[in-house]
């Protein structure tokens, strides 16, 4: 890229980001505090708002570990075992990303709703899934399902099985191999996958809107609370809720950023991420090796 194009290109990129991200987000912040900090605080400390925040937190607390365990498990299966139908599992993992979240919500209602396939059986056993916490967790876990798999799988494929086999020859049980060899190797990608999962779960709207029933103070997550505020012209509450959501998102991004930069002296570089490799690493050579000291 020649010098004379650099400035216009930067300006174009910044303008694009400005109109798409900075301006709308900034205006949300502005509108939230338009009538003073007190009004915003009042709106966000109402029982419904606090409950929505709590529910969002609770859903993330359940759905993220579920997706993490499932994601690592599927990534291990897909990378360490060959079996017929593996491609199908691989494709299924991406399905929640491919279909609209609304479709995910409707599909859950179809299966677990009152008139759904398991509806009668569930009702007979006093279990409610749709329009209650289990449904919200399921919808959130479903839409955020691919992230851990997609982050961890390529790293597992890249590092191969040599280290795990070496650990096995040294006497490690399969669980020890996973805990002491596999897990440290995928640590960074797993952290990134978990962060993306968390962000998605906290911000999910469509799928949760379908299954939650939108009962304020009961089945309203933070995103639904914001939508509720917009619809009922309780705009300060909506904007204040949006600010909280945005702050959570920023915190998540900060964690990812810190994790990505990583400690510069960490030698556990995963090969797929050369940005961690410091240029000053002296390239080791065999020439300085004192061999065969005849003692």
């Amino acid at each position, binding site marked *: 890229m020649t010098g004379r194009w650099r400035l216009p290109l930067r300006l174009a990129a910044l303008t694009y980001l400005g109109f798409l991200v900075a301006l709308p987000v900034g205006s949300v912040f502005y509108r939230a505090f338009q009538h003073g900090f007190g009004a915003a605080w009042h709106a966000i400390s109402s029982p419904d708002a606090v409950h929505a925040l709590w529910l969002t937190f609770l859903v993330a607390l359940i759905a993220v570990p579920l997706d993490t365990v499932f994601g690592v498990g599927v990534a291990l299966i897909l990378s360490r075992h060959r079996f017929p139908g593996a491609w199908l599992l691989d494709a299924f993992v991406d399905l929640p990303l491919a279909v609209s979240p609304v479709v995910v919500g409707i599909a859950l209602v179809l299966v677990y709703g009152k008139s759904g396939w398991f509806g009668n059986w569930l009702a007979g056993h006093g279990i409610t899934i749709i329009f209650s916490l289990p449904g919200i967790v399921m919808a959130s876990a479903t839409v955020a399902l691919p992230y851990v798999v997609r982050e961890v799988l390529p790293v597992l494929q890249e590092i191969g099985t040599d*280290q795990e086999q*070496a650990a*096995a020859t*040294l*006497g490690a049980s399969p669980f020890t191999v996973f805990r002491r060899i596999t897990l440290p*190797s995928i640590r960074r990608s797993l952290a990134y996958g978990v962060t993306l999962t968390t962000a998605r779960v906290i911000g999910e709207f469509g799928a949760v809107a379908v299954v939650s029933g939108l009962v304020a103070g009961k089945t309203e997550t933070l995103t639904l609370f914001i939508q509720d505020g917009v619809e009922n012209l309780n705009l300060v509450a909506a904007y204040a809720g949006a600010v909280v959501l945005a702050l959570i998102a920023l915190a998540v991004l900060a964690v990812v950023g810190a994790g990505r930069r990583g400690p510069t002296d960490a*030698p556990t570089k995963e090969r797929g991420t050369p940005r961690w490799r410091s240029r000053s*690493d*002296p390239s080791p050579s*065999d020439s300085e090796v004192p061999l065969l000291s005849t003692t």
Partner: protein
Amino acid sequence: MSLEVPDGSLTALLGPSGGGKSTLLRVVAGLEVPDSGTIEFDGEDVTGVPVRDRGIGFCFQHYAPFRHLTVRKNVSFGLEVRKRPKAEIRAKVDELLDLVKIDHLADRYPSQLSGGQRQRMALARALAIEPQLLLLDEPFGALDARVRQELRVWLRELHETISVTTVLVTHDQEEAMEVADHLAIINEGRLEQIGHPTDMYDHPANEFVMKFLGPATQLNGEWVRPHDLVIHRNPADGDNAGTVERVTHLGFEVRVDVALEGGGAAWVQLSRGVANELDLASGDPVWISRTGASGRHGKGQPTARVPSRGPGTDGAPLQLLAPDPLAPNTTS
């Protein structure tokens, strides 16, 4: 195939790439399950024993270093898994790092080591658990020529120090001849011959072994070593008449291609002194005879078992007899 590895030996599984050597090694280690056949250590069937309980030291072709652990932690891994006391682990690791001469690199990570250093770290890691059998998969394959040469000598010396029964896989006959005291030639999943390197060089069981272990040429339909042939200027009894086609000087040795009178061609390897004395030029009439006692293939093989050229590995029992566990203080 049936293959026995003697106690305390350094045996090389030698053969062309893709011949099943590494697979055999992995089956012995328990990393792969044989379709049929048995593995025995010291007379005990271990075919069903999982890899972690076999007590085997395995060095992978690309060393498989634990990239997130320091050299010291790599070497101590096997001992930590076995829940040995901390002080014992520390002493043992120090001893091993010293033995493989990377004690000054103990706190480095594998990514900060050269290939040769990684190789020696992998060896120390494998030796830490005091294996009853040490398996090395193409131990020098990924190193450049000079380092490879040094490590060969070093490995042989190391083996003399610790005398743990060792099996290594290589496709390099020179490497196998130099390092090993036993050779097993494996080709296309078959065991072609097993024995001492020199015996096998002089008495190859078949044409494949003959050609694989060193230079070979044909005289009267028999395979011979070109350095076992003598060129005469004058005919004598039993000599084969021919005409010099080409004389090639290759530094120390001189290669003479001869077109034989009865059809066919042979080549003779001469030292420079002998070649200068003969003063050969292409077109010269010469007579070739064989020297020495070195036999042709098919004749006496004191240590070799003639392999069955049968169905290959499938269905045939695979035996590997390993010796007594090491003497307790192997690394001092």
